């Protein structure tokens, strides 16, 4: 049988269709798998990371000074950045959180409070980072991707809070959830590995265990959260808020 001259030879079309189907069958599982992996990475037990949440802290500067040491020790233990006193090198050792004493020279009033990464909404460290290693998650947590950081330290030049440390020598005692490395920059992560599993940061938990509520952690966007109600009730202050960086950490009593 001869085909009419205007009929279309569909052989080639069928071959293309078949090829496409084979390709889909071959590639789709990979894509699905990757998608699932990606979802698993961003979706913790408490749901995906979105800007519906804005994690923040409220720190009570009137709390007894001793509690801050508890918070700092808990951070060192959790994240593995502490250096034993005998090996200490204060100018180069990392300090993810530190105790700052302030005094009003006119009145003599004093306070001591912890300062760490302020998890700004407009973080200068993220702006200046050439590779994008400094990044802000949708929920406001500011992090350094240690695998992309080239160690240029421009973020440290830009941070108004001196909140970041450069790793000046080999590190040991790393935690599986917190990769660290010589030649990269690091800072407070808000204990993102705990927060993503519905837990509080180590410093907050340590204070709570000691019966102190000097650092309150929670979702500032959730009007029913303790922290949102507290910042709505009391006047709080954020350090160098004049710079417009919108820190996520509020202080009371300064």
């Amino acid at each position, binding site marked *: 049988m001869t085909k009419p001259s205007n009929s279309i030879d569909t052989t080639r079309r069928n071959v293309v269709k078949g090829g496409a189907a084979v390709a889909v069958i071959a590639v789709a599982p990979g894509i699905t798998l990757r998608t699932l992996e990606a979802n698993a990475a961003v979706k913790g037990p408490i749901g995906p990371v979105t800007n519906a949440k804005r994690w923040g802290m409220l720190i009570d500067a009137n709390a007894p000074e001793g509690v801050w040491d508890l918070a700092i020790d808990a951070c060192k233990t959790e994240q593995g950045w502490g250096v034993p006193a005998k090996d200490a090198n204060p100018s*180069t050792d990392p300090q993810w959180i530190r105790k700052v004493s302030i*005094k009003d020279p006119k009145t003599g009033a004093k306070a001591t409070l912890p300062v760490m990464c302020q998890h700004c909404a407009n973080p200068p460290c993220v702006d*200046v980072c*050439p590779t994008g290693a400094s990044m802000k998650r949708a929920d406001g947590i500011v992090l350094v991707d240690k695998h992309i950081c080239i*160690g240029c330290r421009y973020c440290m*030049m830009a941070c108004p809070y001196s909140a970041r440390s*450069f790793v*000046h*020598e080999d590190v040991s005692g790393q935690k599986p959830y917190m990769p660290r490395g010589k030649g990269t920059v690091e800072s407070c992560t808000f204990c993102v590995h705990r927060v993503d599993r519905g837990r509080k940061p180590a410093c907050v938990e340590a204070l709570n265990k000691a019966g102190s509520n000097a650092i309150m952690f929670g979702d500032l966007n959730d009007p029913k959260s303790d922290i949102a109600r507290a910042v709505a009730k009391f006047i709080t202050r954020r350090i160098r808020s004049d710079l417009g960086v919108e820190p996520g950490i509020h202080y009371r009593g300064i």
Partner: protein
Amino acid sequence: MAVDTTVYKEINGTGGDYYSLISWLGVVLVTGLAAAYYMESNGHVVTGMNNAIVWGVPHVFAVFLIVAASGALNIASISSVFGRTHYKPLARLSTVTAVALLAGGLMILVLDLGRPDRLILAMTKYNFKSIFAWNIYLYSGFFVIVLVYLWMMMERRMVPHAKKAGLIAFIWRLALTTGTGSIFGFLAARPGYDAAIMAPLFIAMSFAFGLAIFIMLVSFTYKSTGRPLGDFILFKMRNLLGVFIAAVLYFTVVQHLTSLYSAGNADYEAFILMNGGIYTFLFWVVQIGLGGLFPMALLFNPATGRTCQGIMIASALVIIGGLAQVYVIIVGGQAFPMSLFPGMEVSSSFFDGAIHPYTPTLAEGLLGLGGIAAALLIVAVAVKFLALLPTSLSDAKVDPGHLKEGA
């Protein structure tokens, strides 16, 4: 337009002097590379840099060279863009010097990174909001544009287009120095930096530092190769250097006056100008005195300004003053503490409220010198293998119609 009769020729470069120069530069370069390896394998703990002074001596050398690089291009720009034909014979060397200085500066910057092995990341992952990322484009673009410009000047068929390339190179170098100045100008939290004047100040600095290096290079090369170097071109460059030094002084005065006028910066200004110890010394004595006023006096005093030695000494002083200026800007700007709580007395275990001490180590200095050696080595090799230098820069060649300059 008169026919260009300039004859360019490679330098001989077969004598013992040339090879001994190359060897010495090579030794300094290798020592710098070894210092970088030492810093990288032990970590930055072996440098004087710390968590408060995060950029130190390597950055002083790097920024100085990068700034000087764009300035070294000026001689070429002035001849191509502004039609000053007497500078044209030196345009080729000017472009090569610019590229060499930039390469030396970038070498230091890269080797000082915490993870120089990840340099490829800096080329593949960009955060387009970062001025550093812009600079990566500005620097690589500079290499390409300036080398194309050089090729157009050297390739007879392309000569008619060289002027356009020169214009693009000139605009690009202004952008590049603006970018370098803005690395500091964009840092809102630090009282020593956050100022738009950083960009024009850096441009003025680049004019002066780049020309000072260029004058020394030209004088040295011509003396050591026995090629004639007339007073006319030397005095032209001398006058230009005097104007550029004045421009740097002007922008420095404006920089500090503007800062002084704002009450919030009074403490920082007092630190740099009055009670900052080494920084105050470097500012007044080395930057302003030795690197500004004194070389101006040398250049414009007939007894010294009309001798090659006088001009060479003035150029060397401008370079030393320039390094001091960059040191005061970079290290001085970090040594003064950022104010967490303005108006309060602040102290902590992390240097809050205190002047941050910084003592550079030998390794940092050697890396910096290694970068300078790399730049000079590139120029030294280039003038041997490329026809960059005119066989003569005598007055009759450079400006036949011109009588000897009176001043």
